[in-house]
């Protein structure tokens, strides 16, 4: 009756079922666009509308929880800049959802804040670290002193025993110090995710793409550095939100969804086609099964997978329909960044003589 055996296989099979049946396990809630940083590449695009009030956020959280979501991420903007952050996070926990917090870490440099965070028992805190030194980190955040504060936050969270993942989007500012960023993570025993995809802003502004490292960097990154930075692991050949071999290219509209500070629901943080507004519906079930937007996005996920499968190099792609839509106006269009990455990932596999399907080395 009890435990069906732990380990990756049972978990992966459960995640695959959730994917196939479009059972959303996770949701990201951007509770405010307010922020104490000015990151030059930030994808947030506030509309000037009034943001949700706290009782409305509670109402939406109840709907999300009733719908059965397991992992709820509070993000933003900077979620800690919401004046009722602790009340909101406490409500997430009271409703029985596992709490993740995405933060720039600035305010967590205060031990009292860390104490309050720990009392919430978050499953995970993810902190963005944009470089290994103040110059690179602050070239992005534009806030003097933010590097030291973020590192201090990492230190305090580590001392408190909190599980933390560090996130480092790769930009021109930090591309040459990824190994040093990894060293900072190692010092605290934390994992760091390097994100090679810089997205346009949610409103379609492609300005952030100018911060993307050049192609020569990515060739080196995928062929050599990725493996060293990730303890010998090979570059991914599928999006993290879609298990390899599934029918759709990603988990958009399937395994999760995103909410903005106005109550609007989207298939994914990067794919901003509005599904509906949660203040205007009684239950998420009312739209999850029937929404034409969701049906369309699920179909597009399959079309994108099919399109990639037809390409000779298709299995080396990590592909984001949201980036394709904002960058080229077509969610199925192959954007240059994806193509460059795929080329370099393919080369990495070929250099290492990895057989395609099994991931085993052939020599």
């Amino acid at each position, binding site marked *: 009756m*009890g435990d069906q055996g*732990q380990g990756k296989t049972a978990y992966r099979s459960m995640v695959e*079922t959730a994917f196939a049946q479009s059972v959303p396990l996770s949701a990201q809630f951007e509770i405010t666009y307010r922020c104490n940083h000015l990151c030059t590449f930030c994808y947030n695009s506030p509309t000037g509308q009034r943001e949700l009030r706290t009782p409305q956020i509670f109402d939406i959280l109840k709907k999300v929880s009733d719908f059965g979501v397991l992992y709820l991420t509070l993000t933003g903007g900077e979620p800690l800049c919401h004046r009722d952050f602790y009340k909101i996070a406490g409500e997430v926990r009271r409703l029985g959802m596992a*709490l993740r917090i995405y933060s720039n870490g600035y305010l967590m440099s205060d031990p009292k804040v860390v104490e309050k965070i720990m009392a919430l*028992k978050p499953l995970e805190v993810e902190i963005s670290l944009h470089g290994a030194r103040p110059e690179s980190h602050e070239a992005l955040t534009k806030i003097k002193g933010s590097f030291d504060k973020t590192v201090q936050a990492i230190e305090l969270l580590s001392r408190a025993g909190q599980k933390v993942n560090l996130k480092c989007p790769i930009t021109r500012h930090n591309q040459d110090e990824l190994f040093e960023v990894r060293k900072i993570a190692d010092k605290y*025993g934390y994992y760091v995710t390097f994100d090679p995809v810089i997205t346009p802003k949610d409103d379609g502004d492609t300005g952030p793409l100018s911060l993307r490292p050049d192609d020569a960097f990515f060739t080196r990154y995928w062929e050599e550095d990725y493996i060293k930075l990730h303890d010998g692991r090979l570059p991914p050949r599928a999006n993290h939100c879609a298990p390899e071999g599934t029918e759709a290219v990603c988990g958009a509209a399937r395994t999760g969804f995103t909410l903005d500070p106005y109550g609007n629901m989207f298939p994914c943080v990067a794919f901003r086609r509005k599904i509906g507004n949660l203040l205007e519906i009684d239950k998420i079930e009312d739209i999850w099964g029937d929404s034409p937007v969701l049906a369309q996005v699920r179909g597009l996920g399959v079309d994108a997978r099919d399109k990639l499968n037809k390409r000779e190099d298709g299995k080396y792609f990590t592909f984001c329909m949201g980036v394709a839509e904002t960058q080229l106006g077509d969610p199925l269009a192959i954007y240059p960044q994806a193509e460059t990455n795929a080329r370099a990932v393919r080369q990495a596999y070929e250099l290492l003589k990895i057989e395609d399907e099994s991931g085993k080395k052939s020599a």
Partner: protein
Amino acid sequence: MSPRIDYPQRHPDSSFRPIGDEGGLVVLPGKAEVKVLNPAAITIFGLLDGAHSLDQIVDKVTGDFDVSRETAMADLRSFIGELASQGMLAGGGAERQEQT
């Protein structure tokens, strides 16, 4: 405070979710692993709210699954023992475990 074994209660920090007909997932902050449960186990985990007695849980399990009362009670006790040993019941200590 020791847990009331006759009205067992899951760890207050745990979160869980049934998935299709396959079972479900349980997560507990501070635990590195997500626990994967089969359909009967996830149903039971949902009933470990401190308000259902062992007898009431067995009633529910024998109604929903093809299993005798004796087997269900024995399995239930062993499942609860296993959860307790993994710090997944209320009052069982292990509020925050070492990261692995």
